[in-house]
Structures are given as C-alpha cells and as structure tokens.
C-alpha cells in the first residue's frame, strides 16, 4: 500500500507543478518576446500619453529567470506603474531592475503625492498591491511600500533567485 501512496503523492505533486508552469506560460503579450525588461519598457512607453515621463534603469546581467519570478516582476511593475499613473499626480516614474547573483530587485518610484498617512498596507479598491505582496511572499521575497523623502511613493520588491532552477 505504502509505495502506491507515495507514487500517487509524487504524481499529484508533478501535476500541480505542471499546472503552475502552464499557468505561468500564459504570459502577458508584452513579455513573450522580450522578457521582463522589454515588458517594462512597453509599460513605460504607455505613460507618455498621460504626460508622465517614464525611465528604466537595468543593472547587472539579466540571466534566465524562473517563469514565476519573471511573471511576478512584470505584474508588480504593471500594478505599480498603473497606480502611479492613476493616483500619484506626479510627472515622472522611474523603474529600476537590479539583477544580482542571488536576488532580483524591482523598484518603482514616482514623484507624486505619495500614499495617505498610514496607508502603507494599501488602500482597498485603489491599490492591488496587497495581492502582489502575497505573490512576492510566495516566491520567498519581500515587497515594501515606502514614502519618498520629498513625497512620492517607492515600491520595492526583492525576490531571491536560484540560478540552477532556470526556466
């Protein structure tokens, strides 16, 4: 009985991870060809129409990232950039992506009005960031919302990466 149970458990585990991979494979169209860097670039290009200046700074060498990490980074950037566009009333959004050996860090900062006091956890109905917090935490990472010293909001996420489990 025992070996059969173990085998079933293993199969169920495989099925779950394959399903996860299949879901992550349904990527945002912006990312399909250019990865997270290209995806963010196209997000920032979209800001121009609203008179907001967008800028991306990439440092380190973007190696192959697990699909789940790349996906989370893009979704997070999308959420943060869209919040900045809708709510910040600022004129500039800067995204920084830093690829280090053990982690990748994404920063989205704007020069707008910032979060209302005490709202660092997110505002219901306005900020989809609590959901992002869960997503980042599920990957073993951290997400922080910080108030910029001259106003504005800083969204900073660090996600650990294990290069060996590349895509």
């Amino acid at each position, binding site marked *: 009985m025992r070996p059969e149970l173990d085998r079933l458990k293993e199969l169920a585990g495989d099925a779950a991870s394959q399903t996860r991979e299949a879901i992550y494979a349904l990527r945002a169209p912006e990312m399909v060809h250019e990865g997270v*860097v290209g995806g963010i670039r196209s997000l920032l290009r979209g800001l121009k129409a609203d008179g907001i200046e967008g800028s991306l700074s990439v440092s380190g*060498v973007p190696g192959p990232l697990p699909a789940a990490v790349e996906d989370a980074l893009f979704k997070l950037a999308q959420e943060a950039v869209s919040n900045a566009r809708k709510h910040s009333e600022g004129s500039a959004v800067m995204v920084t992506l830093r690829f280090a050996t053990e982690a990748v860090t994404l920063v989205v900062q704007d020069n707008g009005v910032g979060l209302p006091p005490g709202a660092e956890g997110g505002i219901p109905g306005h900020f989809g960031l609590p959901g992002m917090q869960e997503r980042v935490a599920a990957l073993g990472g951290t997400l922080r919302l910080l108030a910029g010293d001259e106003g504005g909001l800083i969204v900073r996420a660090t996600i650990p990466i294990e290069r060996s489990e590349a895509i």
Partner: protein
Amino acid sequence: MTIRVLVVDDHELVREGIKVLLSQEDDLIVVGEAADGETALARCRELVPDVLVLDLKLPGMDGLEVCRNVHAELPQVAVLMLTTFDDAEMVLAAVRAGAKGYVVKDVHSMDLKRSIRAVARGEVAMDPKVMGHILHQVRTPAAEETHEEEHKIPLNRQQLAIVRLVAQGYTNREIAEQMFLSEKTVKGYLAEAMRRMGVKNRVEAAMTASRNGWV
C-alpha cells in the same frame, strides 16, 4: 568559400526564417540548427561551423553560457549574438563571453548577412544601435577616474553614491544607515546634488543620473 552556419534559437519560425534568408546566398549555408543551449553546444562540437548565430535567451543553458563554452572550446567558431535585448549590459556580457558580433532581432536581412560574413572573416559586427550603448558604457567608468572627465558629472563622490542609492529605491534613512551618515547629512548632500543637477526631487535625480549613465 562557403560559410557554414549553425542557427540556434528556441523559436522554430526564427530558425526557419534565417534558413530561408541564408539559402538565397551562394556563400552561406546552414549546416545545422538547435532550439536549446545544450543541443547547441553538442551540434557545435560535432559540426564545428564557421559562424554560430546564437539567440541570447534560450531554455536551459542560456546563450551567454553557450557562447562562453564555445569560445573556450572552439575558438575558431565565430559567435554572432542575435537577440531582442539592446541593453548595454547585455551587449557587454556577450562581448565578455566571447561573442564577435551582436545584432538585434529587428535587424534588416541584408545586415544580418553582412554581419555573418564579417564575423566569419574574423571581424567584429555590432548593430549600430547597440554600438552607441557600448561607447556610452565604456566611457562612463572612465569618467569617474579621469580628472578631465570629472567635470562632466556635477556631483562629488559622496553625492553620486547617494544618488545611486536613491535610484535603487532607498530612502534617506536607509541611505544614512548604509553610508554611516546621519539622515540629516544625507538629506543635505542630496539637496545639494539635486540643486547641482537642476532637479526638484529624488526621482528626477535618479532619472537624470540614469540617463547620463552615472548610476
């Protein structure tokens, strides 16, 4: 003389497209193809092509890793990177890995053929678009060292260090901790940096620094 080409890209359409393009030329022949890094390396060892047209982003072993291995094991094989990335960092990483050429995927078909022939002759082939990035990147570290260039960055070393941390999304308090300074000192240095850069807030400071290649 015929130039033997191995085409590596994880997208079949891209490989097919390149094969069709090159089949129009008498002096270029595609001798093999691969869709992932490990296969690419195996095919390279087996076929020893003149030119390896290599996608940067591959499943499994990525293009850079393949390039490093080929460069080390089969230095006679010229690697031409074909990619969607035109970041200076990526280009430099490819050059360091031993690539002889770097073209972006929206390259004109004529230019791809020209690049293949160039690297086969032992020349370097760089997409004009990425060349600008490289020159910029190469100039930037030197700009911090040489006295003459220093005047172009209106910040002193401490201000520059602070602006770099600002670009990484750190608050004044966090920067103060990292640099063993008081928060007030950081605030003062940053205010002076922003004044010198002619910007009003940290995001603009980070953007200006990034655009000028200071961070």
